[in-house]
């Protein structure tokens, strides 16, 4: 079964990959500027920005860029936030405090520890009253986020924001999740024929192993580093930087074969 999906917008947040322009530069082979200023969110006030949990700071800028490029108000599309590990900073805080002084646990940090903190803040910040959901598929969260986004597009016939993110771990969690760099990418998908698309993708479920045409070394290193960055080859297809097919695979279940549609 083959599905055509319009891409209305994309956004990024990662060291050296703070927006579409830096992605295009990297795809052209230029080195990543990792001392760049982190992407910021315009939905959050400066005060909220300081207090927001790490998952929010990481995911909002990419999601906002994607919505802006799509010409949609942030609250308009349905939204899916997919992350293998969620907010690793808060996980570290929660477990450390519980081990040392559980009665001192911060109520705010606790309610920010839910996996849907980023999506919850998004619904509040963007005023999104439709479905805003949070998924995890461990290291396969990019593939399953895209799959759920495509599924929603097909069944609900309306634009869907897909945000895939994972942070770098702190403390002992680094032994479990040894990513050196945070990564977040966001796409706004719509049923084909929506108009205003920056690319149209042909997506099929298949049973093939992961593969993609080679990308510049710096980007390949990010794909190795952080499983959320497995979305990079799809972004490269959208930008027309590579030809052919990208297969996003999961440990179990179908893979997605993605091509750029003429």
């Amino acid at each position: 079964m083959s599905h055509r999906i319009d891409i209305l917008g994309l956004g990024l947040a990662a060291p050296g990959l703070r927006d579409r322009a830096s992605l295009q530069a990297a795809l052209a082979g230029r080195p990543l500027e990792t001392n760049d200023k982190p992407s910021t969110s315009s939905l959050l006030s400066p005060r909220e920005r300081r207090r927001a949990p790490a998952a929010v700071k990481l995911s909002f800028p990419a999601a906002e860029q994607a919505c802006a490029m799509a010409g949609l108000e942030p609250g308009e599309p349905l939204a899916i936030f997919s992350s293998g590990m969620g907010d690793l900073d808060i996980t570290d805080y929660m477990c450390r405090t519980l081990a040392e002084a559980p009665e001192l646990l911060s109520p705010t940090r606790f309610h920010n520890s839910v996996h849907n903190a980023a999506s919850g803040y998004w619904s509040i910040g963007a005023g999104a009253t439709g479905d805003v959901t949070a998924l995890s598929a461990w290291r396969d969260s990019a593939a399953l986020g895209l799959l759920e986004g495509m599924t929603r597009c097909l069944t609900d016939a309306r634009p869907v924001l897909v945000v895939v993110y994972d942070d770098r771990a702190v403390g002992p969690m680094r032994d479990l999740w040894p990513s050196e760099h945070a990564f977040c990418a966001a796409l706004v998908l719509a049923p084909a024929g929506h108009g205003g698309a920056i690319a149209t993708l042909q997506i099929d479920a298949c049973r093939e192993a992961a593969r993609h045409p080679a990308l510049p070394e710096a980007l390949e290193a990010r794909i190795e580093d952080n499983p959320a960055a497995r979305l990079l080859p799809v972004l490269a297809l959208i930008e027309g930087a590579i030809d052919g097919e990208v297969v996003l695979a999961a440990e179990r279940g179908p893979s997605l074969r993605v091509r750029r549609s003429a």
Partner: protein
Amino acid sequence: MNSDLFVSAMTLCAAPGAGLDVLRRALAERRSGLRPNDFAPCTLNTWIGRVEGVEDTELPSELRGFDCRNNRLAELGLRGDDFIERVEILKSRLGAERIACVTGTSTAGIGSTEAAYRAMGQGEHFDPSFLLPRVHTPHTSSAYVAQRLGLNGPVMTISTACSSSAKVFAAAARLIEAGLADAAVVGGVDSLCQSVLYGFHSLELVSEHPCRPFDRDRDGLSLGEAAGFAILERQPEQAFGRLAGWGESSDAHHMASPHPEGTGAVAAMREALDRAGLDPEAIGYINCHGTATPMNDQVEARAIRQVFETPPPAASTKGWTGHTLGAAGIVEAVFSLLALNDARLPAGLNIEQPEDAWADFILTEARDVRVDHVLSNSFGFGGSNCSLIFARS
């Protein structure tokens, strides 16, 4: 093509015990599964819905890398009501590649991460025995269940706090509608851990008594744990009910408290009714989320009154099971489907002083009535709402 989806099998393991028969007995005897907190090392003065026997449940040896309380609870849950056998039959009919696995959770294996930190002391690295990457991710139970059952369709976890395992029904229905699967195993698993006990304590939402949903003196929740599963498929020979509709919405209001007017809850219920093509009068019973915090119950009742001119009989499961968070949705779905099948509408437990005006539709005694449609509400942190409607099949 008949796109109707039916619940052809289901099972639940929660504080009252494992399996539907145990649950039915508990309902008939009005026997709560709540007990004074004995979940070490937590010393809070509260009541909990701990499941007996989780500690002694062993995972199949080839799945040891998944060993944690959450997956032991999942394993215990899967063993109920011939569920594993039913999945085997389904696999032989449809093929493992055509069956999706979507489960919901909030805490997943975090209890093991907490234990790793406790064992680490002042160090900065986990003891190698705690380095179980498959355990310390929210995805652990879906990955475990899919591998345990040999399912090879799409495998994903929904983690939207307390609406998680209601939303699995909607997600699975979409996967089937989009042609990515022909059936799905859905469910939810959430196990007790220090994070939620001390976390809800820090929010001053934990009661020192067994929780009392919709009682005038309700003063907070009792935390519990549960694992429940269902098979969603087209045209089975027998079914507990048909998934008639669902609604998913966001409050867009606050991370930890519901919109005071219940706008998200109202939207979820109305969307579920629209999708089911039903007028509110068609609903014969509502399984409330009913967490027993002073505010949540009032907001939910207010939302129900906005949707239903005369609300049908309703109750909350929490007096039996405690609030099982990411597993609440599946607990609520199973209670709702039992109400539909047994023609017996469960009442709330621990209601000594019923609220009069605004919650007069809450049952304090079970009622033997055959109804055609039940609505099940699940609302969570982050303002995430899901309502499900099941119809008699």
